């Protein structure tokens, strides 16, 4: 269905050609711009009273190089409404459980978390789901830890890369500046209040264009080194009580890739913890204030405003995608997601067992076993004819 929406958007592209001063609808922020996220899986009948808010914490276990090895999601869906609920949250789920003391219990089907019950007006559904590690392909942030040693010295480069950028078939052009300024100011107010944005109708002279869209990610984290590390120097963060802490934004007005470089001597043994959240925002006018003021001051024209309006709506669509890593039924009033990357403890692989010396004087064990079986079969035949 999401793919259909993307395709429908692409198919609508030619129809926009030569559209001069016509009424067009800005992109719908609830139409995903790529197949995932939310993650796909099994779906079924959905019956939900009224989803008010969803909150997700996506816990990503990474190896020492920063590559994801485990993905788990804590999803909290708040229902506000009276009536039966029955729906599936599609995802490549390996296991699911409710935290201790939770009121409702989730079910597990193949590629879906299942909820059934009755909401008396308020019901919070909380599930902790372990996902197939391949779900990591849909994560918004790539973490890379490059550790190099030379003699007694080491150099650790932590790279955080925003992976949310995508090209979207949409439109550009020039619009009615005053009208677009009012629309943009309205969208900013709605987003600031945390309310749902509906796609407004505008008047513009548009032409098709592929628009690059990225959702900025606010991040903060820490990098812990082994106690043997000495003489530590940091670029892109700061040393605080023996840990390197860092924070910033990847994407949007900031570079999509952020680095933290740590040098020193000894064994670094770096362990990372990064917390990232999608930043939902609407572009501010040049010089601050409202877009209406910017138009009045001559700081923004119809072309800038249309670009900002389309970009704002597509940006919200992208943010909505990453704020619902797991899908939620209906359209919740609020959704939020926090991505937590932590160096995971990985069980060491059992060392390969050395082949035991066979007792056959150099004959491999398998051959010896086959010979023994053949001898037994022959003996059985002889015995049968005795």
């Amino acid at each position, binding site marked *: 269905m999401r793919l259909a929406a993307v395709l429908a958007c692409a198919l609508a592209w030619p129809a926009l050609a030569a559209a001069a001063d016509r009424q067009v609808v800005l992109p719908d922020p609830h139409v995903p711009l790529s197949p995932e996220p939310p993650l796909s899986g099994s779906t079924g009948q959905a019956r939900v009273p009224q989803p008010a808010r969803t909150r997700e914490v996506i816990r990503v276990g990474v190896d020492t190089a920063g590559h994801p090895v485990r993905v788990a999601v804590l999803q909290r869906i708040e229902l506000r409404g*009276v*009536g*039966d609920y*029955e729906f599936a949250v599609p995802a490549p789920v390996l*296991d*699911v*459980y409710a935290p201790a*003391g939770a*009121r*409702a*219990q*989730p*079910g*597990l*089907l*193949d590629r879906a978390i*299942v909820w*059934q*019950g*009755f*909401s*008396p*007006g308020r*019901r919070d559904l909380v599930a902790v789901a372990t996902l197939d590690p391949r779900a990591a392909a849909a994560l918004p942030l790539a973490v890379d830890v490059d550790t190099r040693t030379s003699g007694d010295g080491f150099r650790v480069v932590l790279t955080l890369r925003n992976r949310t950028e995508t090209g979207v078939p949409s439109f550009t052009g020039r619009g009615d500046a005053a009208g677009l300024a009012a629309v943009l100011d309205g969208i900013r107010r709605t987003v600031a209040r945390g309310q749902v944005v509906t796609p407004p109708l505008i008047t513009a002279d548009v032409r098709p264009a592929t628009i690059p869209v990225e959702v900025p990610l606010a991040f903060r984290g820490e990098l812990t080194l082994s106690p043997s590390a000495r003489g530590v120097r940091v670029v892109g963060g700061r040393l605080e009580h023996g840990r390197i802490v860092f924070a910033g934004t990847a994407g949007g007005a900031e570079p999509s890739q952020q680095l933290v470089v740590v040098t020193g001597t000894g064994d670094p043994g770096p362990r990372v913890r990064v917390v990232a959240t999608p930043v939902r925002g609407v572009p501010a006018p040049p010089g601050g204030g409202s877009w209406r003021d910017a138009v009045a001051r001559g700081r923004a024209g119809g072309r800038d405003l249309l670009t900002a309006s389309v970009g704002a709506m597509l940006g919200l669509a992208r943010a909505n995608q990453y704020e619902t890593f797991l899908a939620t039924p209906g359209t919740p009033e609020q959704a939020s997601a926090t991505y937590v990357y932590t160096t995971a403890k990985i069980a060491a692989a059992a060392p390969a067992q050395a082949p035991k010396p066979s007792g056959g004087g150099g004959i491999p064990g398998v051959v010896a076993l086959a010979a023994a079986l053949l001898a037994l079969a022959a003996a059985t035949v002889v015995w049968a004819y005795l």
Partner: protein
Amino acid sequence: MRQRPHLCPRHQPLGLALALALCVAACGGGAGGSSTQSASPLTIVVNAPFTGAPTVADAIANGVDLAVQARTQGGLLTAGDRRYRIRVSKLDDELSPLQALRNVRTAIDDHALAVVDEGTGVDASWSAANAAHLPIGITYQGGQELVDPVERPNVFRIAPTDRGLAFRLGEYVAPKHHKVAFLVDDTAYGTQGREALDKAWAFDPKQVVAHIVLPSGQTDLSPQVLRAQRAGADALIVWARAPAIASVVSAARSRGWEVPVYTTPAGADPIVRQQLAYHPQWVDALTFASGRMTAEEGPAPFEQFQQSYQSAFGPDLVGVKTKQGSAVTQPPEFAMYAYDMTQALLSALQTAGGADDRARYVRVLGATTVEGANGDARSFNRRNHEGVIDDDVAFARFHDMTFAPVKDDPLSASLPTITQTQ
């Protein structure tokens, strides 16, 4: 015991020929044999307290019988390329875990398809049944530990859980700001209930002013009720078998104590009303929690089930009458759960393509969804072997020997009143 008549010597050749013919018929009768003769027998065992709690056991057995009638053609069911003659065997557990275990062992020896169980003794019997890939479907007891999809993959339940009952009691009773006394009997049913109640009231344990155990078999529970009263309770939550509930109500009302009494589904057991028949007003305002009998779609599916049930077995008469003299009947709630469980068992048999691979059969049952008799979906999945959802517990209150959903609970207020008179 009646003795078989001996064959007369001159009838021996005929008898031998007849026996031979019967043997041939029993072996399938060749290519021209009827499908009925080639059906393999397959038994569903009902393990329930037919002497200890007959109303519960009979309801379970009737529900199983009705489902077999509904899902088969004269008892015959095709699964894969096999035909089965589904039989129902009723074994009395006498409310004894040991006897319940013996019954399950009998079911294993007989290669039964499944055991539909009241719940007594499952703690002891599940392991042996699991080793034999024999599913146990609980349709009455709600103890939380009884069902665990990971530890006990062969145990399923379609009945309100203690956890659901206790949480819903908490949701319903706690906002009324009562000082409550928990009165639980000393059976496994009561002990499991006590655990569930403690968890449900963990958010405000100060509301609970007394925990009182009701000794089994003690008919006069006045001392226990007096203790609750002296502890300052202004509401009683009674988690016990039906006779104890009746005794608590009797002890409270005979003292003139008009304390509200909340109970579990056992409160709707006909025994409660039978024991209080001489004081019908004492039953009034007794409130019990149980699974909702009708789905959100409306009462039609349940009424249809009730009609089929009564056509097959006649109405379950409670044995009391209303003020107008109408005989009171018991809606077939627990028969419905047994019916739904049997539907799930037979549906899984067909999905699994037969009963030859029992391990596969149990796995298939663990991913089965059927539409219940009341229109609600009954689903098992890898993380949940409970067919009744905790949220689906509703409350009903007695008046004039029949009960109706309460109006001060959102779910219950949405439910219709089920016909309970003739």
